[in-house]
C-alpha cells in the first residue's frame, strides 16, 4: 500500500517534469520559459522526492529526500530571479506579442 502511494506521487512528479520540459520547448521567450521550468520542475521534483520519502519512511534516504525538498524550494526561485534579471539587463527582448514592459519603461 505504501509503495503504491509513493509510486503515485512519483508519477505525478514525472508528469509535471515532462510538462516543464515541454514548456521549455514550446513557449516563445526566455521569461516565459523560466515560468514553465521553475514552477513545474520545482513541484515535479518535490513530488518525486516526496514519493521517495513515503516509500522509505524516516530512514537515512527518506530524511535526505525531505531536506532536498526544502533546499530546492528555497533555491530554485532565487536562481530563476537571477536568470530573468540578468537576461533583462543584458538586453534580451520580450516576446513580440507581449502586452507591457514596466521594467524597461522605468529605465532599468
Amino acid at each position: 500500500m505504501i509503495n503504491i502511494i509513493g509510486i503515485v506521487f512519483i508519477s505525478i512528479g514525472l508528469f509535471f517534469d515532462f510538462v516543464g520540459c515541454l514548456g521549455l520547448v514550446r513557449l516563445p521567450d526566455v521569461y516565459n520559459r523560466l515560468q514553465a521550468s521553475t514552477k513545474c520542475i520545482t513541484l515535479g521534483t518535490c513530488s518525486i522526492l516526496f514519493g521517495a520519502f513515503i516509500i522509505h519512511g524516516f530512514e537515512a534516504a527518506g530524511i535526505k529526500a525531505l531536506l532536498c525538498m526544502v533546499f530546492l524550494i528555497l533555491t530554485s526561485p532565487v536562481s530563476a530571479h537571477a536568470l530573468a534579471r540578468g537576461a533583462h539587463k543584458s538586453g534580451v527582448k520580450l516576446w513580440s506579442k507581449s502586452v507591457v514592459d514596466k521594467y524597461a519603461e522605468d529605465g532599468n
Partner: protein
Amino acid sequence: MKSKIVLFILANFIWILLNWIPDSQHLLIGLLVSLVVVCLTGDLFVKRVHLFNHPVRYLWFLYYIPVFIWECFKANIDVAYRVIHPDLPIHPGIVKVKTALRSDTAITFLANSITLTPGTLSVDVDKENGFLYVHWIEVKNKNVDKATELIVARFESILKRIFE
C-alpha cells in the same frame, strides 16, 4: 552573539538530519565544523534576533506553509494547461507591483512566493521604494494598484505577521 547561537543550532540540526542515524563521531565532527563556521559568519545570519522569541510568528509560519503549497499546486495546473493547449493562450508582460514589506527576509520570501505561484515570476526588486517587477504570463491589469491586489495581497498580510 544570539545570531551565532541560532546559526549553531540550525547547522547542527541539518547536519544530524543529513547523517541520520547520528553517532558520536559524526556529532563531534559536526560540532567542530559548525563552530568554525559560526566564528567566521555567525554575525551575518540573522539581524533581528528578538523575533525568534515570539511564538505567534511560528504559528503564522505553520499557517503559511499549506497556503503556499496550495498556491504552488494551482500554479502548476495553470502552467501545464497553458503549455499543453494547442493555441498557447498567453499574454505575457512585466508589471510593477508595490509592497509594504521592508525587511530583507520578508522581501525574499515574498519574491520566492510570487515566483512559485500562478503565472508570475519576480524579475527585480526596488528596495528603496518598495517596488517589485513581476513577469506575468497572463497580464490581467497593467495598473500598479490593481496588479498589487491580484499578485501580492494574498501573501503580504501573512508575511507581515511573520517577519516584520
